[in-house]
């Protein structure tokens, strides 16, 4: 007879159960009495309810599901992770609000049920990934978050780019999952452990090292970090824009946070290795984003570059661990900077892709520079949101993006890696180049001929869109509440 669930277990399980329960309910509604509006309401309520269950986790760290009677908890939540969990749920909400008029009504609403159910299952996977402290939960989380995304990316099935995105993401993602699973098996075989700390052991044999390497590759793929980023541009560009918003904000947060918590041992990857990987990602992401003539693709590649900066936080963490800086007053500084960055990047990319979605409805679904020329002038609200988002992504002051970069570089300089910080800061200059170019195109050029709108812009999507844009500014001025 297994021991009953404790209160902590229930706290962690509640949002997951709520999400999956709502998903099953939608399937049932569709089977018994199809009603499109009811499905949407259930889905959005499901996401809101899950968010409500996450709220108490913001105040305290909770660990639950201790495997084998209290040895290692399988799920661990900290306030920072709970904030990221809220971001994931929020991005699913925004994706739902944005997809309401285009994706749900696509092909006469035939895929509405699939859209809503997957939109509920996907954040459940993200939450599992964020909180995972055990290989079983990590694998389950990654798979639960990926499988819905494969389908969501290909949802617009008469658009070849969307189908290509889904297929590409699926094939490469399955390959990465293979790496992840095999890596876990090797680590388990070598150490007999399946918890997150297995990789932190100082002395690791070759088998564990290979296993950790493969586990790392699997996570690096999900986080789209060079050289495992090649899928990102095509998938982000091809997927329907609301889904891209979900991937950019939610998946990135879940994958990078998991990478941070599972970042393997001190011996295997010294701080410099992380910094080198970060710089490589930054260079590759920025250089390839610089010459894009498509805003969506540019944003996708800039997301790669942002992951590069996030790796600097991992470098600072590794350096802190190496010098035995744990237990100091600011020992969780690297994680704080990482979670702030993920939140800032999440808000900004939700706002950016969301505004892009609204603009695309007026540009015939196109997101290339030619179609978007001067569009911000014709549609001031999405234009303003996009402006705030791009400035935040670039890292201008009074946006959360600026403080996010600032915090990460502070951590890096604090552990004495000033040279890397200098390199990273100068590389972000390239990013300014392409964000400014996008602003030029949207604001300063004359708009092209007006096209009839595919779908009228809806007030709900616009209202939801304002939230991340406003948060980007609010937390840029008042970051204290997010320093979790």
């Amino acid at each position: 007879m297994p021991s009953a669930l404790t209160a902590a277990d229930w706290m962690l399980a509640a949002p997951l159960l709520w999400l999956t329960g709502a998903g099953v309910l939608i399937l049932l509604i569709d089977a018994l009495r199809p009603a499109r509006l009811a499905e949407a309401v259930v889905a959005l309520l499901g996401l809101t309810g899950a968010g409500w269950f996450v709220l108490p986790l913001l105040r305290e760290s909770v660990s639950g599901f201790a495997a084998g009677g209290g040895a290692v908890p399988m799920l661990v939540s900290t306030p920072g992770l709970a904030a990221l969990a809220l971001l994931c749920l929020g991005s699913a909400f925004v994706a739902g609000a944005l997809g309401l008029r285009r994706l749900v009504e696509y092909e006469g609403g035939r895929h509405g049920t699939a859209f809503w159910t997957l939109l509920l299952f996907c954040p459940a996977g993200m939450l599992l990934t964020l909180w995972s402290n055990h290989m079983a939960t990590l694998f389950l989380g990654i798979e639960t978050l990926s499988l819905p995304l494969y389908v969501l990316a290909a949802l617009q099935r008469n658009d070849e780019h969307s189908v290509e995105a889904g297929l590409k993401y699926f094939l490469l993602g399955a390959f990465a999952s293979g790496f992840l699973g095999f890596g876990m098996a090797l680590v388990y075989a070598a150490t007999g452990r399946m918890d997150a700390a297995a990789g932190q052991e100082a002395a690791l044999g070759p088998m564990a090292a290979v296993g950790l390497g493969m586990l790392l590759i699997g996570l690096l793929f999900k986080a789209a970090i060079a050289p495992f980023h090649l899928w990102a541009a095509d998938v982000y560009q091809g997927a329907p824009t609301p889904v891209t918003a979900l991937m950019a904000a939610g998946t990135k947060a879940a994958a990078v946070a998991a990478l941070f918590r599972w970042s393997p041992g001190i011996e295997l990857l010294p701080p410099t290795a992380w910094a080198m990987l970060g710089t490589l990602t930054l260079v590759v992401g920025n250089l390839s984003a610089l010459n894009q003539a498509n805003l969506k693709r540019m944003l996708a590649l800039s997301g790669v570059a942002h992951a590069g900066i996030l790796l600097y936080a991992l470098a600072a963490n590794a350096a802190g661990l190496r010098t035995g800086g744990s237990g100091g007053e600011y020992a969780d500084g690297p994680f704080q900077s990482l979670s702030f960055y993920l939140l800032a990047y999440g808000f900004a990319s939700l706002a950016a892709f969301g505004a892009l979605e609204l603009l695309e409805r007026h540009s015939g679904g196109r997101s290339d520079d030619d179609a978007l020329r001067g569009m911000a002038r014709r549609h001031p609200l999405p234009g303003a949101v996009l402006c705030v988002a791009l400035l935040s992504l670039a890292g201008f002051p009074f946006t959360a993006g600026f403080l996010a970069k600032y915090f990460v570089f502070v951590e890096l300089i604090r552990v004495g890696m000033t040279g890397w910080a200098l390199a990273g800061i100068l590389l972000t200059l390239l990013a300014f180049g392409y964000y400014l170019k996008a602003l030029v195109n949207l604001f300063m050029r004359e708009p092209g001929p007006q096209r009839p709108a595919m779908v009228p812009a809806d007030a709900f999507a616009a209202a939801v869109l304002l939230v991340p844009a406003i948060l980007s500014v609010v937390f840029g001025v008042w970051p204290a509440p997010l320093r979790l």
Partner: protein
Amino acid sequence: MLAEYAPLLAWLVLVMAFVGGLLALTAWIGRARPAPGKAETYECGMQPMGDARGRFSVHYYLVAVLFILFDVEALFLVLWALRARELGMSGLIEVGLFLAVLAVGWLHIWRRGGLEWDR
């Protein structure tokens, strides 16, 4: 610890050697007498007709996927059945929940017409 796997390794080597050896032996001993009839597709002794690369109906794939889904999920039931007595009432409830979720999925597929061949 790796030593425990030594028999496995030996078995692996033996299998490889056996299969490889047989293949090599047939190639060496056997005589090749090619004839046009031998190159033809075997179709129950009948004259082959049509193209081997014919397209299957997409329904095959759908049914195959559904079969795999429900088949794999049946595996969980086997595990539960082995320990049904020890798991007791709570185990029964958990499996009931599992089956209920499964049933919703099945209901959905059914009502959506996933099981109809002619659509």
